[in-house]
């Protein structure tokens, strides 16, 4: 199975794609792809269930579907009854609709406050639902996260959510492939987040449009599964719907023993299959880019999309030096919104809020690194720092390790699990004009609250900035 019947060497993407073809693409119709796992959340699914009801349709495979609540849920503490109160009536109504839909259609739900609830892209992997070689979709663009396991995983719209609910299939035109090779080794205090921010800064937010990325090379191999998830998560920020990493021992070790992972003889069979997934020697990609990890430094964004990023010690670019008019206009607009001057440094820029969380950087290793960095130090008096674990399980694990105490002693807030200030739907938000260093994935205008200004960076840069109260290069603060 390394190559197809014709002996043609194949990429990881091609193998997973071809394994899931219910019907190949024709001149008249796109390919019909079978979906192994459909993840559902409260914000992008209600209208899909409505369509099912209107057309009197069932969910074809509730047993390949999993729902959670994460986007509009509060991250405030449980009350004396052990319940997380939802004070926003619209959010509460939306959550009730999710509960009813799951109950009516027989879909398992990780409800708010229950032990496995969390951000959809954190719980899939931690439950072992996410496995190599699978096709995974969710009405959420950061579904690309799951590609870290060698799955083909991508975000879909609500109409497509209805398609998958009703038929477990999706109509898809075949994307192109791009190899994203990261050679060499990362320097101290440079992380997976910095790799992906550097990639997006290089190709731009539209550079990956129409492609599926495969991340490869020594630096990717050396990463933990959490690091690989951070990278695949932000594939969409480069315009690619999916990013993949070939499964290896690191992957298998991570999946082994997870609740939904295969067990016993089934595990051995599964691993034997997964070992055949990596791209064959001689397989070709439609495009290839190469980065050198040794040359990377911590990265930070200065603008209003994730492509407007730079090494942390660089200077904010000058729109007048751009020859392309539309790029100049875009940069001008971004700097006006951000309240920044061309040619200024970001290091030393005062910050109001530091957010450690989101499906990019809220897993246990992210929190461990952040805690190690902040232990024995204090959050600057001008800064509100929020730490929002990605799931209830991450939260419990962190508490068992005492990380919550470390954060609280430093003066940070320790919250319940959810998307929180990554998307600012639940009341966790920036005030107009405030600056945040955020470990999330989007710095779009208003993303973290209307008028809020976001600098995207790694957890280490976020913590260093929280301690100093200004944007700080984490290399100046290593321990």
């Amino acid at each position, binding site marked *: 199975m390394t190559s197809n019947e014709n002996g043609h060497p194949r990429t990881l993407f091609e193998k997973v794609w071809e*394994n899931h073809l*219910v*019907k190949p693409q024709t*001149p*008249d*119709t796109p390919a*019909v792809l*079978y979906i*192994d796992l459909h993840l559902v959340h409260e*914000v*992008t699914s*209600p*209208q899909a269930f*409505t369509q099912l009801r209107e*057309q009197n349709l069932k969910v*074809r495979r*509730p*047993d*390949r579907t999993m729902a959670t609540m994460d*986007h*509009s849920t509060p991250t405030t503490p449980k009350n004396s009854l052990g319940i997380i109160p939802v004070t*926003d009536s*619209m959010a509460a109504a*939306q959550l009730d*609709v999710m509960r009813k839909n799951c109950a009516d259609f027989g879909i398992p739900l990780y409800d708010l406050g229950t032990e496995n609830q969390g951000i959809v892209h954190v719980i899939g992997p931690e439950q*072992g*639902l996410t*496995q190599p*070689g*699978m096709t995974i979709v969710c*009405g*959420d*663009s950061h579904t690309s996260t799951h590609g870290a396991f060698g799955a083909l995983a991508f975000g*879909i*719209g*609500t*109409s497509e959510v209805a*398609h998958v609910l009703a*038929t*477990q*299939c999706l*109509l898809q035109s075949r994307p192109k492939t791009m190899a994203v090779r990261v050679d060499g080794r990362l320097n101290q205090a440079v992380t997976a987040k910095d790799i992906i921010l550097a990639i997006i800064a290089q190709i731009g*937010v*539209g550079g990956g*449009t129409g492609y599926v990325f495969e991340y490869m090379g020594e630096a990717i191999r050396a990463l933990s599964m959490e690091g690989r998830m951070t990278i695949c998560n932000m594939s969409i920020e480069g*315009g690619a719907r999916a990013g993949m990493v070939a499964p290896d021992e690191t992957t298998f070790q991570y999946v082994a023993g997870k609740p*939904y992972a295969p067990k016993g003889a089934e595990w051995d069979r599964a691993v034997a299959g997964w070992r055949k997934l990596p791209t064959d020697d001689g397989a070709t990609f439609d495009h290839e880019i190469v980065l050198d990890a040794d040359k990377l430094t911590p990265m930070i964004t200065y603008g209003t999309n994730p*492509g407007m990023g730079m090494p942390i010690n660089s200077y904010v670019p000058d729109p007048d030096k751009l020859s392309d008019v*539309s790029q100049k206009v*875009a940069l001008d*607009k971004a700097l006006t919104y951000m309240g920044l001057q061309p040619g200024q440094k970001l290091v030393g820029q005062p910050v109001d809020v530091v957010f450690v969380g989101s499906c990019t950087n809220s897993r246990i290793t992210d929190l461990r690194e952040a805690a190690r960095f902040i232990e024995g130090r204090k959050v600057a008096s001008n800064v509100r720092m929020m730490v929002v674990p990605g799931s209830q399980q991450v939260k419990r694990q962190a508490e068992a390790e005492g990380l919550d105490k470390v954060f609280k002693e430093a003066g940070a807030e320790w919250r319940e699990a959810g998307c929180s200030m990554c*998307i600012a*739907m639940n009341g966790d938000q920036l005030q*107009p004009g405030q600056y945040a260093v955020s470990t999330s994935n*989007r710095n*779009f*205008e*208003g*993303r973290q609250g*209307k008028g809020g200004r976001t600098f995207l960076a790694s957890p280490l840069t976020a913590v260093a900035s929280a301690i100093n109260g200004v944007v700080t290069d984490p290399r100046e603060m290593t321990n």
Partner: protein
Amino acid sequence: MEPVRKFSGRLAPLPINDIDTDQIIPARYLKVTDKNGLGQACFSDWRYNADGSPKADFILNKPEYQGTSVLIGGHNFGCGSSREHAPWALMGAGFKAVISTYFADIFRNNSLKNGLLPVVVDEETHRQLISLAEEDPTTEVVVDLESQTVTLPDGRAVNFPVDAFSRYCLLNGVDQLGFLMGLDEQIEKYEAGNPARVQTVFS
């Protein structure tokens, strides 16, 4: 679904690159469970002041651009979040087509499922349409899905690509789900030959 065939409409120029779906419809409006009323919130943060009054200098608030139905965005329109609320909001605001040099994948897919036409044109035509729309708000174009052309005021017809399947569904006003529902046998066959990789419900 209403068929989409041919229509003429005036242009609203919004020549900003990388317009993301958080701008088209900010996340705080996503706490709804239906598709209605989102037009009001379309481009909300660009369109309204903090007190809710319209920003006079925003293009869609200018009297001469009221009633426009074809939006011209900058390159890479619709990037970011997969929210289908973005095409719902644009349609709610009266748009039937968006013109750009290229679209983000998910936004393009979502739009085609709702009858909002993503019209890709070359950079030259794009520039020309923007200046026409900026100079003269009465500028009209004709968008014809059947012939896959957008016709400029000077009579020049420019082709745009649409995949054959989406085109068929839109021209005939049929939902794409119907096609998938018709494949039941093939899906069953696939399932029989490919055991579940995970099972979330145990019975």
